[in-house]
């Protein structure tokens, strides 16, 4: 036997092969029509630039679409998806090889290539598909995790894929058995089937069975292809496209600005107000449920479920998208032809005001999504509609917004002014300096730092560390206003814009170039949002700046221990707006590593999978039901590490976790401290240990 001559007959045992081509026409027509419907709907969305920076997009595409970077982060699902995904690719290539071999003059399906790829590899990957589907079926039908959506469609997808793979092996096996294929050993699974069938069936029976199963296999496969655009299997195409067109700028800059002069509506309560990318997001969802699984609000039992928001909007788009989007008219659904907007915010769906106002904007959902769906900005868009068009929002947020409007800070009833914390520290205030340009850095204190008793220690520690390192800095004092972050996350873009413009103007007046702040929310606004209003600065979170000072030797952090017992165990809680939103995980940890003999332990959910303190998105101002408190869920996790210090880097995290830890620490002495407080304890002058 000459392996260079190895091949097999295409369409062995099959008559009327022309029928294959005839059937292929309607199959591809339905397939194409299905996707054309989708594309037509997406194109009816508002414009958005997502085909720029092609190099970066290709990188992301290779990493997370081709490389399945995010999918494999969940082990079980990652394994079975990889098995099915790679199997599909190999089987698709194999089918292409057959087509080229049979329908073009290039007879490539022969020799070693035939044996190694078309027989052995294809058999192995075909087995992968069957094993993968079986693992998925075990999860879906037996272990039944909460994060999945249990639809008949999803079950049928598993059944049909399994049937296609199984029938593929059956026809291969019977062909091998009947033709006594000399290369049978190269197709181990098909051969196994042949060996099993041989003693049980006559050649004639196998031949008849082969024809029947062959056509059955073809009909299932063609039917399946035609079904793809109408099922969640369309993710095979929509997911890679969605990843390619993902937001490249991080979650911190993912909210859009509004042109208040021209906008027809503020915020979104209508399918037609979404951009094409938003609409693509809905179609890219694979119902994996990871977003809801990691959602802090959902975890503590609130009604918010990012997955169901996306799926309910997807269902609405499929049901009414053609009328509402493509015809370009509003639609009241009663066929009267009246133009009336179809609301997306609906008490009866997942897009209820209650759910929308439970979001902490932590972006855990976006980080978890294997296909880069952008859930959080849509939630904020809907909030914008409720806040700006309907003036409908929770009471705590109302007090916060009233205070922001009349006092430019969100803490109604605070007993502190913006400069009280500076008492005895001799800190320059820009307005009182002869030459404000002498200050190399603006220390942006933030409302949460200056006006909340618990956090005044943090800003004092930060200021004293800057003084100790000889940094020439100043504050804006009474001229500082809230950056607008809470207003923006709650959905009051108008108020955010006013505050942002005011701050940009003030900072411009003093020629501010470099900003250090201990509030990650302010940090994010300056870094990602103020450039849209003409304010571009070199922005540092205090942990980054202090870490640099330690690195450069301007601050000496050696030798001292964090607490008097000298054996502290510290766990660091990543603030969402420093970590996930801006990718800074290391600076605060580096800083903590330099604190004497303190030992760092990590919470199970840390770094990019960190769990929100519950204070983002304006939620710090809302009274949560006692049994649905995100901060306590997180505090429990921190306490469970055994740490005696929970280190934070955000004034909102500090207050939220203070409350949470006090509720959950039991008899243990567990303290919540900002990294700056800890550093000052370690490097402060003797006798100055308590700033």
């Amino acid at each position: 036997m000459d392996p260079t001559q190895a091949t097999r007959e295409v369409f062995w045992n099959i008559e009327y092969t022309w029928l294959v081509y005839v059937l292929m026409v309607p199959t591809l027509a339905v397939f194409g029509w299905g996707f054309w419907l989708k594309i037509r709907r997406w194109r009816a969305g508002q414009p958005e630039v997502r085909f720029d920076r092609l190099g970066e997009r290709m990188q992301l595409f290779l990493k997370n679409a081709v490389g399945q970077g995010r999918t494999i982060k969940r082990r079980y699902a990652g394994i079975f998806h990889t098995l099915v995904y790679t199997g599909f690719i190999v089987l698709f290539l194999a089918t292409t090889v057959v087509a080229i071999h049979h329908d073009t003059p290039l007879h490539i399906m022969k020799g070693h290539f035939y044996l190694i790829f078309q027989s052995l590899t294809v058999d192995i990957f075909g087995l992968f598909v069957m094993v993968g589907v079986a693992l998925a079926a075990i999860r879906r039908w037996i272990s039944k995790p909460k994060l999945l959506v249990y639809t008949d469609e999803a079950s049928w997808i598993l059944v049909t894929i399994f049937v296609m793979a199984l029938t593929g092996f059956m026809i291969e096996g019977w062909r091998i058995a009947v033709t006594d294929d000399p290369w049978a050993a190269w197709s181990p699974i098909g051969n196994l089937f042949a060996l099993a069938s041989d003693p049980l069936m006559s050649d004639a029976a196998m031949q008849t069975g082969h024809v029947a199963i062959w056509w059955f296999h073809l009909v299932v496969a063609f039917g399946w292809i035609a079904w793809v655009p109408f099922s969640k299997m369309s993710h095979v195409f929509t997911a890679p496209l969605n990843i390619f067109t993902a937001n490249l700028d991080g979650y911190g800059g993912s909210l859009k600005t509004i042109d208040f002069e021209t906008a027809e509506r503020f915020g979104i309560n209508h399918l037609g107000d979404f951009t094409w990318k938003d609409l693509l997001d809905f179609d890219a969802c694979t119902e994996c449920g990871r977003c809801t699984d990691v959602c802090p609000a959902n975890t503590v039992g609130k009604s918010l479920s990012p997955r169901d928001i996306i799926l309910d909007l997807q269902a609405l788009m499929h049901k009414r998208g053609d009328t509402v989007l493509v015809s370009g008219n509003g639609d009241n659904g009663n066929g009267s032809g009246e133009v009336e907007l179809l609301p997306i915010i609906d008490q009866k769906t997942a897009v209820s005001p209650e759910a929308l106002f439970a979001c902490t904007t932590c972006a855990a959902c976006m980080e978890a999504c294997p296909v880069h769906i952008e859930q959080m900005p849509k939630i904020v868009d809907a909030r914008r509609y409720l806040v700006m068009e309907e003036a409908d929002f929770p009471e705590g947020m109302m007090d916060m917004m009233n205070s922001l409007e009349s006092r430019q800070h969100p803490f109604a009833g605070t007993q502190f002014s913006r400069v009280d914390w500076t008492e005895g520290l001799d800190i320059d205030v820009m307005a009182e300096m002869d030459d404000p340009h002498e200050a190399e850095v603006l220390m942006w204190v933030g409302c949460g730092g200056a006006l909340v008793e618990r956090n005044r220690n943090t800003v004092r520690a930060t200021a004293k560390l800057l003084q100790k390192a000889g940094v020439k800095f100043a504050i804006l004092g009474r001229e500082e206003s809230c950056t607008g972050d809470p207003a923006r996350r709650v959905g009051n873009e108008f108020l955010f814009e006013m505050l942002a413009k005011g701050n940009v103007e003030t900072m411009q007046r003093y020629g501010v170039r470099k900003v250090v702040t201990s509030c990650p929310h302010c940090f994010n606004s300056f870094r990602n949002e103020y450039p849209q209003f003409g304010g571009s600065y070199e922005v540092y979170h205090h942990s980054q700046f202090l870490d640099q000072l330690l690195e450069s030797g301007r601050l000496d952090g050696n030798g001292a221990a964090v607490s008097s017992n000298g054996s502290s165990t510290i766990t660091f809680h990543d603030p969402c707006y420093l970590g996930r939103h801006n990718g800074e995980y290391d600076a605060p940890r580096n800083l903590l590593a330099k604190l004497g003999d303190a030992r760092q332990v990590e919470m199970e959910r840390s770094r990019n999978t960190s769990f929100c303190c519950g204070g983002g998105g304006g939620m710090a101002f809302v009274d949560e039901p006692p049994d649905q408190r995100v901060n306590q869920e997180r505090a429990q996790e921190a306490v469970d590490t055994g740490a005696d210090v929970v280190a934070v880097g955000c004034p909102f995290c500090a207050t939220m976790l203070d409350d949470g830890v006090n509720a959950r620490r039991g008899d243990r002495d567990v303290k919540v401290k900002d990294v700056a407080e800890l550093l000052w304890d370690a490097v402060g002058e003797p006798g100055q240990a308590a700033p």
Partner: protein
Amino acid sequence: MKLLVCLKQILDPDVPARDFQIDPAAKAARRGGANLVTNIFCENAVETALQFREAATAEVKITALCYGESSAEDCLRKAMAMTVDEACLVERDGNTNPDAAAVGRVLAAAIRRLEQDGGPFDAVLVGRESGDWGVGQTGGLLAEELGRPALGFVESLQPGNGGVTLRRQTDVGIEVAEAEPPFLVTITNNEDNVPRIPKTRDVMMSYRKPLQKLSLADLELDSEEIRTGSSIFEVEEIFIPADEVECELAEGDTLEERVDQLAKRIHQVVASIG
């Protein structure tokens, strides 16, 4: 129907204690770092008027009126953002703290002027008192100037049989009254007249709506007389009470002794207060 709501701009009563400053010579509070806000009871009055309009079947027009410095335009714009129909500012010239009688005269003159142009107001709504001086006289004195009946501490207005049904808070409970326009009410707060947050579009529109401005001269009032001639009281002195805290620790070797000591001191202190 036509309603008129009077507004007053005051220093933010929520200003942190340490930021609150006074000018003993001028016998007035200093602005300092404090913000200017609409007096809360005036905002309750705006909300009460808006709710009356929403409940009424007939057309109701609401006008906001303020006697204040030019910065008080913000209060009127906010009222318009809350969807008050019209606004009028009577500009104050340097008279930092006119008393309630003077304010009543100015407001009455302005109301008569507005009525000349646009017909009589069926009801005038005034906040029960202001959050700065808390005198609580303006409503009554304004009613006197206008010669209209007045009712105080009203928390809601509802369209009634031919007239208006008023609910007012009293020491013993809620009193419900029927009133025939024209009348004046002072408005107090309850959980239902918390001022609404305006819709953003209304906020934007409020800056495009016309705002009528009148001076004391327009109203043919002598500003000097308003400043000095109508005082119902005179401020003798203004000061921030010293916040003195005396701390004593109950002493004793055992807990019982310390409790005993504490109880004795409490008796002494109570006796000394008489």
